[in-house]
Structures are given as structure tokens and as C-alpha cells.
């Protein structure tokens, strides 16, 4: 499998996840492309996520049997910890990179392995929307079989995101999400 080609990858790899909490944010303004969740509900990606505050996004495909499940496993850890803390919610997004195979039904079946809370969204932008949405998030790859684990931590109010390449501990992602300033922009 080949690599995601990501502008910020090198700096993130050099600094490593240990310092990711203080990494500089980048401005990401993806198009408001319709995305469908595991229950079949369709809404614009930005429209859906903008009011939800801190968001952690990861990328996967359902037939993947290697690192995708580790990244979703880390989101599972975040989901569990946030639920136990009973604090402010953090929205988690597992965004499919395989629109050909990943339909709401397959997303639903895959999500069931991780017993997600209602704060964890499993999304596909479909055949027409996936590439432009990934472009808008600064993510591209030669093949779905060729991606490195990556998380985006930020919010769609400020449109500022920190890119974490690798497999951070769930507590680090939570710390990063909790550091995002409250955004009140219209």
C-alpha cells in the first residue's frame, strides 16, 4: 500500500505525536459535499459538523484489515473515555475513502465492531463526493490500499485543524480537542 500524500506530513512525522497537541493548526475549508452516514442520513459535510464543536476525523475503508482498524480502535478509546468523563462531547468521524464499496449498509456493519456512541459518525461522500472532499481536507493517495494512519483535530467553525500522522494515544487526541478555543463565528 502506498502513502497518503499530505502537505504537512513531514513536519508531523518529525515532531511525532508526542508534541502533536501543540502543533500549529492549518486552515482547511472543504466543500459542503453531501455525506451519508451509516444510518442512511444525508447532509452536507460542513453543515453537519460545523455546529458540533471539536471534531476528530480519521480515514478508513471497511474491507481494510490492517491499520484502519487500529485508527478506529483509537477513536473507540476516545469515545469510551469521553463517555466515562461525561464532559463536553467530542464528535468523531470515520470517513470512508472507498466509495465504490462502502455504502451505509457496509458502514453500519463495520461500525458495529466498535459499538460507537451517537457522537461517532461513520460517513461516505459517495462516488462523486469522496475525491473532492478528501482534496478539501488535504488528503490524497494513489490507492485505498496505500494510506498512512492520520487524524485531523479541529472544528468547522474556525476551520483550523491539527494534522496528526501516526497512531497517537486516545488521551492525546482528547487533550488536543479540549484545547480548541470555543468558536462563535457566524
Amino acid at each position: 500500500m502506498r502513502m497518503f500524500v499530505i502537505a504537512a506530513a513531514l513536519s508531523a512525522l518529525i515532531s511525532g505525536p508526542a508534541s502533536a497537541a501543540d502543533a500549529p493548526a492549518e486552515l482547511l475549508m472543504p466543500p459542503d459535499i453531501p455525506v451519508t452516514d451509516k444510518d442512511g442520513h444525508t447532509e452536507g459535510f460542513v453543515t453537519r459538523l460545523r455546529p458540533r464543536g471539536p471534531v476528530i476525523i480519521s480515514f478508513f475503508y471497511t474491507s481494510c484489515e490492517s491499520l484502519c482498524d487500529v485508527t478506529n480502535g483509537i477513536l473507540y478509546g476516545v469515545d469510551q473515555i469521553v463517555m466515562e468523563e461525561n464532559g463536553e462531547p467530542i464528535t468523531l468521524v470515520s470517513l470512508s475513502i472507498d466509495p465504490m464499496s462502502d455504502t451505509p449498509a457496509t458502514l453500519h456493519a463495520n461500525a458495529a465492531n466498535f459499538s460507537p456512541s451517537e457522537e461517532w459518525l461513520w460517513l461516505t461522500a459517495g462516488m462523486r463526493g469522496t475525491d473532492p472532499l478528501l482534496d478539501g481536507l488535504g488528503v490524497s493517495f494513489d490507492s485505498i490500499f496505500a494510506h498512512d494512519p492520520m487524524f485531523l483535530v479541529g472544528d468547522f467553525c474556525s476551520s483550523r485543524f491539527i494534522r496528526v500522522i501516526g497512531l497517537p494515544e486516545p488521551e492525546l487526541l482528547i487533550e488536543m480537542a479540549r484545547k480548541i478555543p470555543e468558536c462563535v463565528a457566524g
Partner: protein
Amino acid sequence: MRCGLILAFLTATPVHAETPGAALFLHGARAEIAIGGGSVRLPATRFACAGCHGADGRGRAEGGTVFPPVRWSDLIASETYDAQSFARALTEGVTPDGRVLAQSMPRFRMEPDVLASLVDHLKLLDAKDGAGVTDTQIHVAKTGNGALDSGFAAAIEMFNAEGGAFGRQIVTTVDGAALDLAAFDRNQAARIETACLAAAIAAIRHDGYEAVRLSGPPDDDILYRLRAAGLLVDPDAKVVLHAGKSGAKPTATGLAHFGCIDQLGPFVAELVRGGSHVSLAVPDRAALGWAAASRRTADAMRGFALGALLGRAALTAGRDLTLAELVETANALPIIPEIVRLAP
């Protein structure tokens, strides 16, 4: 990677009960994993060893992450592993030399009998290494479906006549380790169906239609795909999409019919005679050409396509080949159906 299914492709010899070690290695059975520094615990069923290291244990790479080979010979060649130190590496992530394994390697928890059986399985991988592939041949077990096997034979005859791949020819066999063509066929059928459905929907959009009727009962997956493509479902539409499990003979004539050749093929002549336009999504144009020229059945055409796909995979996978890598490579090759138009 899709290694969880791969064991099924790799043997034509009698199937024995899977050992606990093999079940863990291939399916993540009877174990739990910890990731994220130990704070996340999950069943290992989505974290089978083979998913990252390959069903052959030879190791793989994914993006910038390297999953090392884990056959027992590989482990003891690099560090002084024994059963005890292997258990520590697997459960605590610390190797005999004190090296801490990367976070991409989950920490496993399992009963001692499963662990012991896993060590046995890793040793067995050494013994099985290269099974079904020699310097000059790649062995494939026939399906028993005469038509499909004949199509496969025709395709590999052409592949072999053109020089094979890296000095190897694909040959069919009835005993010994070999790629199970029947299992390979079942696995590819799902990929082909998905690719053909997507191609048919894209063709409908390309032709400017905005609504379709379905040949069978609505299926959530198909409805989602149509909606995502911006198509409405209308029982009075002038376009019929043949997809899903209907298999029924189309009764509407004088319309435009779209669908995969596997489903729509048997009805094409009658539809065209009845005044319909038919657009067939064909996963392998060469296989269609061969089948049409030699008046073969749909099964034979499918066998031909499978042979051609394996040939492409053998050329793509490279010189240092195992059956597991061959199947993984075939699964990663894109299926891009062509649309064949037939008018009254």
C-alpha cells in the same frame, strides 16, 4: 489488505480443523487486543495477524508502515526468540533485545494454549513457505465446473504462450498446494457485481437520464447508490436498472435496459428483438470477445476473465511470489467494466 479470506484460496488439499493458533493468526479468534498505550481493549477479530503481516507471514508494507515478516524463522533470525520471549513481545510489546514494538502492533492477550498453538502456526508457515509456487509454475486447483475451467484454461494458455510472468506459467492441478479457483471465483464475484453496478449507474447518468425503474425489489444498497448519483426511482421511468437478486426475466420492452452482463446477458437477444436498447456493463471485454467468438457460456467467459486476472496479478506481484501475495494483488487490481451498447 484482505488476508482474512485468503486461507480459503490457498489449498486444494483436504481441509483439517483449524488450530487455535491458525484461527488467531488468520481471524483474530480467541484473543483480545490493547492499543493506544493499553487504554483501548477490543476483541482481536478485526486485528488478525494476517491482516498486516500477510497470510503467508512474509510481512507487508502499508504507506509508511512496515509490517515485518513473522514466520518463526524470521523471528529467530533477528532476535533470540523463544516461546517465553515471544509471549512477552506479543503481550507487552517488548522484544528479547528490549526493543519496544511500534504502536501499530497491538498488544495481544490470550490463553496459554492459544499462544503455544500460535507459535506452532508460525513454524508451520516456514514449512509451507512457497507452497503452490515454484520457480517455473503457479499451481491452481480447478473448480469442477467444466465450462468455467475451460474458460480459465483458455486464458492461461494465452498467458503462458505470451511468456507467463517472471519465468512462471500458470498450471492447473488436482492435488497438492494450489490456489483454489472456486474460492477465488466466489470472492471476485462480489467485486465484479459492485463494479458493474457502479458502471451501469454511471452510464445511466452519462446518457442524461434522471430516473430509473428497478428490475427487482428495492435494495438499500442500490437505492443509496442511485440517490448518491442523483437518480430518482420511478416505476414509470424509461430506463430499467437490472441489479440485485431479482434474476427475473425482464418483461418491459421498448425501454432502455442497463445492467451487468451476468444478470442481463441471458435476456439481451430477446430485449433487443423487442425494441429495447441494452447497455451491458462488461467487466472483461476480452473475455466477452473470446466467449462470443468461440460460442461459449457465461461460466466459460467468467473462467476466462479469472485466468486473465490471475495473469495480470502474477505480472504485477513480482518475482518473489506466494499464493497469498498473488491473491492480494489480484484483489487490489481495479475492475473497470466497459459499457457495450446494443440497439434494436
